[in-house]
């Protein structure tokens, strides 16, 4: 590992240094939390912000941290818990998080954070594969109103923008959203593959995801959720086909709860400068995002109206879902029964065979020391920082195997923890808790 890796790292360090060597910035560090995995819309938004802020010289360094899961509600809960009152961190959020809060019954909401600004929006498109019998939205809706369950709607995760739009369309044609046969896929390529392959009757997704397929003629767009036709996009709107729905998947930025007014003002001016920077404008065009910059009371009112709309349609979805045929009931209980039965059989075998190899127990002391090392490590990790926690773990673990070289082990413990920390935190900008040594390393 040593030689080839150090060569690679020297190279990465040089590139990183060259990229960061811009003018003297106004703010030293602003952390951007993307409450999603790398690759998705929120992650892209965070990384575009990172580039725009750094390039415009507004912020010296803007590391992105991914806290993925559950439509952003995991990131939201962590943001409220761990970052309250901090002035150097923001989180990407948006419509999908509103849906996630309702669908997953999250104990926290967007009322618990400081809403800063709406940034972008993306229109949704309803489309069918090129081979579908449905030529127009009317064809589709006729079949849908005649027998709602026979139309399967494929889209992203449950409670997300795709399902919300499917529900709004059903509501608008007088069908209860609870009768929408919505097939949730885990975003990305999975839903697109199912739509292209004709596995579902119709697909809902963002314009950017569908656009290459529409251009190539593999998908036939039936409607777009914009209020008016978009220039260069030959897709009829829902409105001109008789459905009074304007809908977009908007993305916004929030600050932790309890931010001081002066810090809030500083963040506001930072964002205002970012959204007019050339790097930001370029990215909007590249990702086909709409500029939806909105702040202050106007944004608060907008967010409140959207929350009501999302809550309303998702509640209608949930009504009557208990009796749904997709109910998962038998499977979990089968698994738990299987675990209990095999566990009991195994326990009996172990007891009968004289408690297995563990009877002698002379291996307990090193294992106990290792367990103590693990517990100490867990206690120290976020309190004292990665370096101290890792050094303690390394040193005690080494002693569990051989207690004869405390000094050698100690030196290696410090060396390994400091070098891994420097490598990952500074060269790769991976977020690790700095803890007590924050000013030193």
């Amino acid at each position, binding site marked *: *590992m040593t030689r*080839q890796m150090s*060569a690679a790292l020297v190279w*990465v360090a040089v590139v990183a240094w060259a*990229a960061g060597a811009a003018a003297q910035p106004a703010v030293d560090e602003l952390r951007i939390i993307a409450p999603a995995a*790398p*690759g998705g819309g929120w992650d892209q938004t965070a990384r575009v912000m990172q580039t725009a802020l750094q390039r415009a010289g507004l912020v010296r360094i803007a590391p992105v941290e991914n*806290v993925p*899961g*559950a439509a952003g*509600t*995991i990131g939201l809960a*962590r943001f409220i818990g761990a970052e309250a009152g901090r002035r150097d961190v923001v989180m990407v959020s948006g419509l999908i998080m509103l849906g996630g809060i309702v669908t997953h019954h*999250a104990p926290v909401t967007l009322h618990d954070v400081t809403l800063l600004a709406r940034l972008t929006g993306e229109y949704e498109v309803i489309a069918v594969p090129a081979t579908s019998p449905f030529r127009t939205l009317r064809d589709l809706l006729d079949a849908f109103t005649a027998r709602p*369950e*026979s139309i399967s709607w494929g889209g992203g*995760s*449950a409670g997300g923008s795709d399902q919300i739009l499917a529900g709004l369309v059903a509501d608008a044609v007088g069908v209860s959203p609870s009768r929408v046969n919505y*097939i*949730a896929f885990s975003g*990305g*390529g999975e839903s*697109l593959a199912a739509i292209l392959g*004709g596995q579902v009757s119709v697909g809902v997704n963002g314009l*950017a995801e569908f*656009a*290459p*397929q529409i*251009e*190539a003629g593999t998908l036939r767009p039936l409607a777009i959720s914009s209020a008016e036709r978009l220039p260069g996009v030959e897709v009829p709107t829902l409105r001109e086909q008789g459905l009074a729905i304007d809908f977009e998947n908007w993305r916004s930025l929030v600050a932790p709860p309890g931010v001081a007014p002066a810090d809030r003002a500083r963040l506001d001016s930072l964002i205002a400068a970012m959204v007019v920077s050339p790097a930001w404008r370029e990215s909007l065009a590249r990702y086909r995002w709409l500029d939806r910059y909105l702040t202050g009371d106007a944004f608060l009112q907008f967010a409140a109206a959207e929350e009501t709309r999302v809550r309303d349609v998702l509640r209608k979805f949930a009504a009557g879902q208990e009796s749904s*045929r*997709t109910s*998962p009931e038998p499977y979990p209980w089968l*698994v738990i029964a299987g*675990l209990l039965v*095999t*566990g009991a*059989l*195994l326990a009996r075998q*172990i007891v009968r065979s004289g408690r*297995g*190899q*563990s009877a002698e127990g002379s291996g307990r002391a*090193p*294992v106990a*020391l290792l*367990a103590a090392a693990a517990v100490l490590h*867990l206690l120290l990790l*976020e309190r004292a920082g*990665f370096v101290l926690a890792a050094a303690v*773990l*390394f040193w005690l*673990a080494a*002693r*569990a195997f*051989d207690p004869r070289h405390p000094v050698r*082990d100690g030196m290696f413990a410090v060396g390994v923890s400091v070098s*891994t920390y420097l490598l990952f935190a500074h060269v*790769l900008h991976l977020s*690790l808790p700095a803890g007590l040594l924050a000013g030193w390393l």
Partner: protein
Amino acid sequence: MNTIELLRGGFDSALSWTHLLWAFAGVTLGTAVGVLPGIGPALTVALLLPITFNLDPTSAFIMFGGIYYGAMYGGSTTSILLNTPGETASIATAIDGYAMARQGRGASALTTAAIGSFVAGTLATIALTFFSPLLASVALRFGPAEYFALAVLAFTTVSALIGGSLTRGLFSLFLGLALGLVGIDQLTGDARFAFGIPQLLDGIDVLILVIGLFAVGETFYQAWRHGRDEPEVIALQTFTGMSRQDWSRSWRPWLRGTAIGFPLGVLPVGGSVIPTFLSYSVEKRLSATPEEFGRGAIEGVAGPEAANNAAAAGVLVPLLTLGLPSSATAAVLLAAFEQYGLQPGPLLFSSRPDLVWTLIASLYIGNVMLLVLNLPLVGVWARVMLVPRPLLFGGILVLASLGTYSLNASMLDVVLLFATGVVGCAMRVHDVPLVPAVLGLVLGPLAELQFRRALAISEGDLTVFLTRPLCAALLAVSVAALITPAVVKVRRA
């Protein structure tokens, strides 16, 4: 222009000094991150994206391709030498690879893994070059019913991994299935078995189970044995190369692994678990000496290692031809395409042929580089076994914790890591096989989800699994895979 000419154009561009340099940087970095537990190619590419913003897209993608292939090579190293696979792709390798390392045949295992990866990577890249559009259209015929059938087929491989005791194997499997229940039910969005803990809503990451059971569990187990037994002395027979017998036992598994891995990689669901374990169980079934599996059969390393590299190339097929990302790394690569204003999709081949063909050509070159890079390293890596144990295991624990924390920046994940480590140690002490638990966690949720999706689309009609020909065929193969060994046994008796 035909494919050959386009490919030649790609080679002309990829063989420039700058592009070769980026390819080398990529494969080196990829090998390095492949060795580290938890730090995978997806995270690496995501971290490099802002840094590479000023590069021209071709250079950047050549490097990303190198990282992607390199990580597949690097992943096998820790599995074989230390029984600590850092990701799902190299679990199957650990079973026989570690057994070989303990017999002093670590260098042979590493060599067959490296050459197998090269053979599979190259053959799969050839298939990618010539058959992409065809394969992509076949992949689209897989709907939820077919994926359910595929998961069922993958479940039959558990029988090859269960070991001596049925009770112990089934307990391990049910443990994995039960862990798979935790988290949001994807179809309805309801939380299940999350006990009100937000971090559990997204389920238990399979990487935590893998690193916990294997890396941390192995450390605890070695500590437990250390106090009881004399330390195991591992005689290193050789630092390089494979014997003539190793070669003759490896080449067929390489080819079979490629044949299994590539098509399964093309399918937009599943990852590398299904191809590697299907390859492992096929090798065990075809072997004249199946009892050697688990005790250091070189076929058990050669097959899965070829399969995971071939699958990695397969993932690029839907990405380049349809713009469909089917793995975490592919999703990041898709985001990278978008960063450069490129639209991967059905038109990418015609709109940016220069980029696509340079990328494909550099995959061939990257494979050669990886072989050249990794073969001499085999001797170096094999000497890892000589590092004093206390330092080795201290380092493994630190890296395991770092890799886990970097997944979601969640303390709960690190707590789970050490908890599964203790469970893994207890399972080793009581001879409970670890692999069925990982398969249960991966395949259980997949099978359940696809089964219910298929039923939702068919409005509850169960015959959908028999009337769709592909699905019915896969289910028939699964039944045959379960029944045949029993029939053979009865006949022999």
